[in-house]
């Protein structure tokens, strides 16, 4: 590749990535040479500014036609833009949480890494959203994963943090192996790693044996990716890792990492498997391969919702509870994937957006309450309404939204998923019913937190502990999350219209 070809690419399409990459690189070099006594907190603010800048440059790109550079390995289509917006907002909020994170021990020496590893993880997630090739897809996935492994264990002298990182690496390694194995079959069948070229080859593979191999590839990839989504069967890591990891990292895993997981899932499912056809002879008998797989996805979605919500009932540790809650929400999102109706994109996008705000908000409150004492029992919430009424009200909004109560963004998100699941033909009545039933089950543990905050008296020592001091970054994040949760709950069309006018059904998904 000579210089002319290199320069002929529209590099402007990658501006958001370049900004994040640049900031992360500069921060890591400065960290190396800066004197020890320099407060690394400034890095966090620079990182935050970098994310905002990247967001601004992305918004600037929104109106453009789809751009494809580097031989279709990097694509900036509506799909990529829409989900990158979510990733950037999520990462910005997590960065605000990270800025206010002051645990008792184990973080002092690694403050700098904390911030630029978050940026590196974000970069990986953004690459995943934009990649049009299995190789770049995988590189993005690994960049995100590796950053997350380190982040989970960044409290070096804190035992649970180490345990969580170890578990995360081992489980993640296995999951990656699964994904890669599945991808290798796809490559074997099509002879290319490029998604666009695959869409030309796959429809010709009507041979039953090929379809069988494609089936294996599908399950391998799906199972492997379920690790990132934290859905069954690869959800077991979530409770341990969520519990042990520093709270901002937990928020990062549950929001940015999960969104990235759905992004890659949709990309692969729709481009690779959505273009294959099962059935050996005669055009009439041919059915879309992916439609044939719907039932299996439905089973996984149902299992995920049930496991997540039922096991959450027994949790006393607040972060473990939120891990199961996060598994449950991934299950709800899989319902939208199962249905594959015309509402799938809006439902996924809106729900991930709503989930981002309500979940980061909830983790902000959790972080504020638990970081000083390392007491993560649900009892830490007791009497919060007496101690800090505004904080309790904010948490109340997040909890109601997670539980899907009207007036919050979570409700609209669920509504959107239901419409998709029930409008398609044949409608997924059973799956929708399971989703609603498990939502009611979730009331038990969500309202358990409300009970603690509003009904129970505070424990004695915490009552004299006096005021909870609100760090500025966390305060800003909380306000943004509360406002967004309520505004998108009452006027969801602010987001939905933005989505429809700018990304109109992702019609440019495959061009």
């Amino acid at each position, binding site marked *: 590749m000579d210089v002319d070809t290199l320069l002929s690419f529209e590099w402007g399409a990658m501006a958001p990535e370049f900004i994040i990459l640049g900031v992360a690189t500069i921060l890591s070099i400065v960290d190396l040479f800066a004197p020890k006594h320099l407060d690394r907190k400034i890095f966090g603010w620079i990182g935050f500014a970098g994310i905002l800048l990247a967001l601004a440059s992305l918004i600037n790109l929104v109106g453009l036609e789809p751009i494809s550079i580097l031989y279709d390995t990097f694509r900036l289509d509506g799909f990529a833009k829409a989900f990158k917006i979510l990733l950037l907002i999520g990462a910005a909020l997590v960065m605000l949480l990270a800025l206010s994170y002051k645990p008792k021990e184990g973080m002092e020496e690694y403050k700098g890494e904390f911030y630029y590893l978050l940026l590196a993880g974000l970069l990986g997630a953004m690459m995943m959203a934009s990649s049009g090739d299995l190789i770049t897809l995988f590189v993005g996935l690994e960049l995100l994963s590796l950053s997350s492994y380190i982040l989970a264990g960044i409290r070096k002298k804190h035992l649970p943090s180490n345990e969580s990182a170890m578990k995360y690496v081992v489980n993640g390694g296995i999951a990656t192996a699964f994904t890669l194995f599945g991808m290798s079959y796809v490559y074997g069948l099509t002879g290319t790693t490029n998604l666009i070229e695959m869409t030309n080859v796959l429809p010709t593979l009507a041979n039953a044996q090929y379809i069988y191999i494609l089936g294996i590839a599908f399950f391998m990839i799906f199972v492997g990716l379920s690790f990132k989504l934290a859905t069954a069967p690869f959800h077991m890591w979530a409770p341990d890792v969520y519990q042990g990891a520093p709270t901002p990292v937990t928020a990062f895993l549950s929001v940015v990492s999960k969104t990235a997981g759905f992004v890659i899932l949709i990309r692969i499912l729709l481009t690779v498997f959505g273009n294959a056809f099962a059935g050996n002879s005669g055009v009439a008998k041919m059915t879309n391969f992916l439609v044939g797989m719907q039932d299996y996805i439905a089973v996984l979605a149902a299992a995920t919702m049930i496991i997540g919500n039922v096991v959450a009932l027994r949790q006393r540790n607040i972060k473990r509870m939120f891990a199961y809650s996060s598994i449950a929400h991934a299950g709800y999102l899989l319902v939208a994937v199962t249905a594959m109706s*015309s*509402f799938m994109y*809006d439902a996924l996008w809106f729900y991930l957006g709503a989930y981002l705000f309500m979940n980061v908000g909830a983790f902000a409150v959790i972080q504020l309450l638990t970081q000083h004492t390392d007491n993560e029992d649900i009892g830490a919430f007791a009497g919060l309404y007496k101690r800090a009424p505004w904080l309790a009200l904010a948490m109340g909004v997040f909890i*109601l939204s997670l539980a899907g*109560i*009207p*007036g919050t963004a979570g*409700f*609209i998100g669920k*509504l*959107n998923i*239901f*419409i*998709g*699941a*029930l*409008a*398609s*033909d044949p*409608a997924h*009545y059973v799956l*929708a*019913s399971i989703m*609603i*039933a498990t*939502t*009611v089950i979730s*009331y*038990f543990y969500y*309202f358990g937190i*409300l*009970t603690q905050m*509003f*009904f129970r008296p505070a424990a004695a020592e915490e009552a004299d502990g006096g005021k909870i001091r609100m760090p500025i970054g966390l305060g800003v994040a909380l306000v943004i999350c509360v406002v967004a949760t309520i505004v998108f709950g009452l006027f*969801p*069309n602010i987001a*939905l*219209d933005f989505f*429809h006018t700018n990304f*109109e*059904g992702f019609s440019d998904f495959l061009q």
Partner: protein
Amino acid sequence: MSFLSILVFSPLLGILVLALLPKTQESLIKLVGFLATLPALVLALIAFGTEDLTKYDVVKEWIHFGSDASLYAIDYELGLNGFSLILIVLTAIVSTLAAIASIHIKKEWKGYFMLFLLLEIGMLGVFAAQNLVLFFIFFEITMIPMFFLIGKWGYFEKEKGAYSYLIYNGLGSAILLIVIMVLFARTGTANISDLAQLMAVEDANTPSPISESLKMGLAIALLIAFGVKLPIFPLHTWMLRVHVQAPPSVVMIHSGILLKIGAFGLIRFGFGIFPEQFKSLALLLAILGVVNLLYGAFLAFIQTDFKMVLAYSSISHMGIVLIGLGALNEAGIQGAIFQVVSHGLISALLFFLVGVFYERFQTSTIANLGGMAKGMPLASGFLLAGALASLGLPGMSGFVSEFMAFLGLFEVHPVVAAIGCIGIIMTAVYLLRAVLGMTYGKAGREFAGITDIKSVEFVPVLVLLALIVLIGVYPSVLSEPLQATLETIMLGLGG
């Protein structure tokens, strides 16, 4: 802002004012809480006096899913018909009186009244909503404040009561949500009158087909969803806990209005959207009604706590609503609607008196309240009047509704109706046993230093009694506004 929006959201003003008040100003907070219920009352009464209700309709674009502009829109639509207007007036009256009854609340008045007013918004909205999703949203808005009102201001097992309320109603509303979403997803509209038209034709032109068996399934699901709310036996256990554990002022609202949402939903959505299906369920409804009536009556007979007597009495009286609906004729349905209103007033009255007694004696068991006629002659008199209204004494509202409901059922299912009549006798037996035990029974305590019902406490008692007698002697006050609604329902049922 349109008239109806102001009516529904007027308690919001009170919430905002309360938010600014310091939380130690007990009497001021109580006064504001009471005043905040008045605008809705005044507006509801103004609406009650108007002939043409369609002028209050409000339609504004609100939420829109998908990219097709004409489908999957949820508008902000409020409107009134005779039936919903009556229930809005009832809501406004009972809310104002319950706000007065809230003088007995002992702690955290500010939070209490804010939740109380939010609850009122939810209730008013439920009756005014013109589409299913909006209905559901208001329906859920009633649920959250109730959870807190029970769980924080209730009695000994308040948290248990709050949870059982939440889970049962959560399940009920989950089933309701499935019905609503199936209808919305497959027809593309949530507007009640549009849906009624679409369901009336076979193979209507909808984005996704709706088969006859699906319609039947939805109708049964609807029956279960509102059956939890009403409550229909055996879905009633949560409601007993709420009646016993919640503070009396909240139970006034709960028993007086929230239970009625179940009946309202059955009539408005069940009969309105699925008339054919409910026709075939009619006998089932009548039988369920008789079961409710007898079960409630028999269990009320053996209760020792007056609150439990009233709770079972509510179950029993809701049976009459079902009996009236099961009759499927004009008399029956009119009787059911009358019973909804009448029981709303009567149970509000009786639970207000429970609050009055509890304030003075810290108990509500019948044995401990014995001989009250000596110490509190006036209160005892009112209690007796309430009980007589409840057992259906002619000249009071209970009589009209029971009479019409049974009249309707005797026309179509005389045997079922005859069995049901046993329940009417039982009602008299258990109510008189309880009330006489309290007023004339063996004196369970000293009455020295106990004041009779006094000053502001007279207001709810007198207003409610006056309304009960008014409906009893002059039923047209309800039947006239209802006429148009009834005709629509009967038209749907095939005349």
